[in-house]
């Protein structure tokens, strides 16, 4: 499986994502600078890393969401190919409309950087099949604007379609319904604030994030068994 890690000016988790998906989980990963849109033509999955793209100008993720490469990513998502956005990547996905809602300033204003316990609410999508439903996992969080907000109607829709993939056990930032990560209706786009790519080696505190990348690769292999 070929995956591209998109690098915007100001991305800073791109190397971690590359390391986790490529060197640890075994995908054929590449780092793609945001102007090299043609390099996405033959990739099977797109990973949008964390950081502070464009210095978080205007709103986190808003400037990146208007870049040309987002049109390519949108096409890719519409074809049903996987797109994963972590942290700033999640903010970019909501700003570009690929996922509903918005990420606002943390309830207590401060930037938070520590491990959080998450509950796997949905394991019937390509990103979480190797987890048990309701399993508790530990991922680091590192954000100042991770307070997920959506209106009541959208929240109801997210719940009805099982689009809430991860929730916080002890909500750190004020997100509605403790939401830490959501997917689109089709199930091929996942956005989350916590960092699975920083939890792929037990030596560094937790390897609970590894199965997310392994799920993605295993599901791609089984649906592309002929030419895998």
């Amino acid at each position, binding site marked *: 499986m070929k995956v591209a890690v998109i690098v915007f000016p100001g991305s800073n988790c791109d190397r971690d994502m590359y390391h986790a998906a490529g060197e640890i989980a075994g995908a054929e990963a590449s780092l793609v600078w945001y102007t090299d849109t043609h390099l996405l033509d033959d990739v099977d999955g797109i990973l949008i890393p964390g950081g502070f793209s464009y210095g978080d100008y*205007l*709103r986190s993720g*808003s400037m990146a969401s*208007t870049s040309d490469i987002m049109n390519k990513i949108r096409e890719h998502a519409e074809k049903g190919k996987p797109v994963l956005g972590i942290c700033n990547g999640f903010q970019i996905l*909501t*700003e570009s409309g690929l996922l*509903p*809602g*918005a990420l*606002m*300033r*943390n*309830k*207590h*204003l401060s930037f938070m950087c520590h491990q959080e316990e998450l509950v796997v609410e949905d394991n019937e999508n390509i990103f979480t099949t190797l987890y048990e439903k309701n399993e508790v996992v530990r991922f680091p969080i590192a954000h100042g604007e991770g*307070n997920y*907000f*959506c*209106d009541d109607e959208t929240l109801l829709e997210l719940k009805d379609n099982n689009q809430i993939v991860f929730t916080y056990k002890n909500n750190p930032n*004020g997100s509605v319904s403790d939401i830490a990560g959501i997917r689109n209706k089709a199930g091929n786009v996942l956005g989350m604030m916590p960092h699975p790519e920083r939890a792929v080696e037990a030596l560094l505190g937790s390897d609970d994030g590894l199965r997310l990348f392994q799920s993605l690769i295993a599901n791609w292999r089984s649906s592309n068994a002929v030419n895998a």
Partner: protein
Amino acid sequence: MKKVQVYITLKQGVLDPQGKAIQTSLHSLDYPEVEDVRVGKYIELQVEEGPDLEKRVTQMCEQLLANPVIEDYRIELEGAR
């Protein structure tokens, strides 16, 4: 050229933690009469005049300047200079 002023505020019902913190600080400076604080953004544009000016600025707000999920906006057009 026309000066266009765009005011962006959080929607009613959306929690504004920054506003709350400012309110608390104002209270501690002995301004107990402050009942609510909402923080917003002010954006000033110089735009070439055209028949669809207001419509196009509205589109700019919808597409980029504001996030309609959490924010409202108000546009003010000033006289030509």
